[in-house]
């Protein structure tokens, strides 16, 4: 373990992004993700990159749009209210098929809300947030190591599919320190012949735009984009299964909720209760198939969330009536305890 260092989740994201070749960071400070910006402010000038604290979140995401158009690996980060502000720009990126990384270290909402951990931006992240028909690939790490690993993966996926990718973390993931290895799986960014890098009078102009006023053409673009999304749903789903082989009750939880749930599953197993955990790592594409298959055997699912129950809708769609689906949750910056989850395992959560 000699090569491991202790880092905050936020710092791990920032360092991993730099290692992945991200040379441009645009952001605006907000708790609990400000360490990302602080880290970038220190490191970017040293590697010849750009750290720019924009005048607002809206400006920052549009700077990301610009740098992505020029073919750069680029990112921004914020927390819940700030991501709402970025949503217009994220939709524009999706509509212009631009790669880029957006990090949301969630805090309690709605509105300005609080600064404690939350997962209540699940709908916003996975169902849109901005306007129009689009998806982001949404990755939910559950450790500091995964914050680093999936930041690298996010840049790869963004470039591979020419679309924005979101890391959906929460205040705990951002603030906690764990040992992390920075020996990451770095691949060079692919060529980007579509980027607006100057023609040298040798090729046609590349145009990056989300405006398309002829409905027949705009419809075609939407259909093409959804073919890409269908391919991603088939090939890029990531999840972890924990003690599910013989489980009669299956918890579905991501991020910090999965960490808490693992404690509860371990405690329940000690009492002989057959319970397991499915942890979606990609929230979009959602691991529908694995949950659907598990529902052939399991009698009951419990969605453990730091929200009023958002992911539970996707769990219900996957279970499709084959088993009961219950909710075990806290909201507004509170985190369920392992005891609360254990209680839900034993005596049922909210239906």
């Amino acid at each position, binding site marked *: *373990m000699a090569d491991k260092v202790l880092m905050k989740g936020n710092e791990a994201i920032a360092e991993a992004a730099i290692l992945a070749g991200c040379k441009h960071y645009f952001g605006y400070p907000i708790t609990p993700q400000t360490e990302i910006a602080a880290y970038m402010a220190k490191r970017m000038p040293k590697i010849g990159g750009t750290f720019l604290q924009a005048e607002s979140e809206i400006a920052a995401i549009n700077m990301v749009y610009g740098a992505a158009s020029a073919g750069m690996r680029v990112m921004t980060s914020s927390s819940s209210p700030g991501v709402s502000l970025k949503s217009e720009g994220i939709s524009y990126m999706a509509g212009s098929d631009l790669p880029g990384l957006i990090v949301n270290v969630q805090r309690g909402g709605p509105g300005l809300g609080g600064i404690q951990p939350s997962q209540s931006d699940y709908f916003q992240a996975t169902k849109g947030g901005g306007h129009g028909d689009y998806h982001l690939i949404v990755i939910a790490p559950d450790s500091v190591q995964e914050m680093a690993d999936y930041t690298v993966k996010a840049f790869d996926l963004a470039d591979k599919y020419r679309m924005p990718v979101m890391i959906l973390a929460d205040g705990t993931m951002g603030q906690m320190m764990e*040992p992390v290895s920075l020996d990451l799986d770095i691949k060079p960014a692919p060529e980007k012949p579509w980027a607006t890098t100057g023609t040298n009078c040798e090729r046609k102009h590349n145009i990056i735009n989300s405006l398309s006023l002829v409905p027949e053409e705009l419809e075609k673009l939407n259909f093409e984009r959804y073919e890409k999304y269908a391919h991603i749903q088939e090939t890029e789903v990531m999840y972890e299964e924990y003690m599910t082989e013989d489980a009669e009750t299956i918890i579905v939880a991501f991020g910090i909720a999965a*960490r808490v749930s693992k404690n509860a599953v371990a405690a329940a197993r000690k009492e002989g209760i057959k319970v397991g955990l499915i942890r979606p790592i990609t929230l979009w594409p959602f691991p529908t198939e694995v949950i659907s298959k598990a529902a052939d055997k399991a009698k009951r699912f419990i969605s453990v969330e730091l929200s009023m129950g958002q992911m539970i809708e996707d769990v219900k769609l996957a279970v499709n009536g084959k088993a009961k689906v219950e909710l075990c949750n806290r909201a507004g910056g509170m985190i369920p305890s392992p005891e609360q989850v254990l209680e839900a395992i034993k005596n049922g959560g909210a239906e």
Partner: protein
Amino acid sequence: MTKQILIAGFGGQGILFAGKFLAYKGLTEDKQVSWLPSYGPEMRGGTASCSVIISDEPVGSPIVSKPDVLIAMNIPSLDRYEDSVVPGGVIIADSALIDRHVKRTDVTAVEIPATTLASENNMPTLANMIITGKLLEILDGFNEESIRAALGKVISAKHADMLEVNLKAIEIGSKL
């Protein structure tokens, strides 16, 4: 084995630093560790706390709600967390700042005047490390090699000259 440690006190007492030191010490001993600070408005002058977990197995939830060990460096921290300590656990309180005794009878209560000792030994900012020294003595003794290694990681290069005095503070605590 898993040890769940909660350290709590005022902002400025080095609560987070002591926690980081313990986490790094675990890391240098090839343990699984997590460190989670409170990051609320308490950072701006109120109470501060951090959860540290040191384990032989992967750490599940990083949140310590039922500590095996509580370090309380002020009255509000003892008031707030005393009842959460597991039966048979340990409470270490800075008796220089806390003018009451630990009420629990089912835990090992250790009351040491860390802040007074820090002043007397000309290291007024290191009550946190004196009390951490006591914790180490209770948990696994004074192992200078791993303490040095952890201090080397947690103290930035800019403040490298502070290593010896931190080590001294830990030693003072461990001999109490």
